[in-house]
């Protein structure tokens, strides 16, 4: 807990994800209690990208994934968000895509530089899929 708190207090647009501890199961974010090995940032990101990249992802899985991801003590990497936005596209759900952008902006908390960085990184995807940001729609 302390480590997460220290990390989140280190501001910086680049330090987005935090090392997550636990098994490969999406819900197991507990630490070494069972003696498992520490999952690296890349493994965490890869796991979530794979989750959202599932071709026939259904709406429930999208909701579950997003709600779980937002529950973590981190701001997701652009590549995870890109996979999630593409999942929204496969599900024909623009509203959820915009909601996801709002949610990650909220997750950044006091670190104002994170959200513009995310939008900058996601800009090609946003343009390709035609997703407007909440700011473009005047919803802020």
């Amino acid at each position, binding site marked *: 807990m302390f480590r997460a708190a220290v990390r989140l207090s280190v501001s910086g647009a680049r330090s987005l994800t935090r090392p997550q501890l636990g098994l490969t199961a999406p*819900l197991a*974010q507990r630490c070494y209690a069972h003696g498992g090995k520490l999952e690296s940032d890349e493994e965490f990101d890869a796991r979530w990208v794979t989750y959202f990249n599932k071709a026939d992802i259904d709406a429930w899985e999208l*909701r579950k994934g997003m709600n779980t991801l937002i*529950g973590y003590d981190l701001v997701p990497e652009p590549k995870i968000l890109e996979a999630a936005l593409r999942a929204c596209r496969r599900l024909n759900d*623009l*509203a959820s895509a915009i909601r996801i952008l709002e*949610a990650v902006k909220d997750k950044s908390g006091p670190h104002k530089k994170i959200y513009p960085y995310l939008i900058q990184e996601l800009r090609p995807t946003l343009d390709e899929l*035609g997703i407007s940001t*909440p700011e473009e729609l005047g*919803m802020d």
Partner: protein
Amino acid sequence: MLHLTTGRVGCLLSKQAVVALTSSGARMSSHGHHEVSDSVDMSQPMYWDRLDTPLPDRPWKDVLDSTDKSLKQKEKGPWTALSKEEKIALYRLKFNHTYPEMKRPSHEWKTVIGGMFIFFGITGLVVFWQGHYVYPPQPHTFGEEWQAKQIQRMLDMRINPIEGFSAQWDYKNKQWK
């Protein structure tokens, strides 16, 4: 994760949860999602606005009229073809409040502080009334004359002559130091 279950339970306790009626039965209406009324079917998926749960179980408006349905059809095509208003309309179909709307400050604190002061005031009145009507007369030892005699006796007895009471009295000049 604990927070996921509290997402379910917490919505009942959260002041910002908007518990909507389900779309079954005669009670439905297209925007019929009001605050908790007499009975809500908790066995159906519910909608809530929560910062930590961006995608609730159910869309906000699940009874769509024909314009909504045609918009939803258009949503299946490229989103670049949608206008801003259409995108906003799609968002509002699915969600009630935006994040900034969820986070809007309320004036509740004024009610709380005001209520606090009112209760302080009432308590003050009660204490004052009590002092006037309830307390018995003061003991006679509190009177001016008695107090003076008491002090003189204490000085005569040399109470705490080094650091305390009598040390403050200048015996030569018969006054306080």
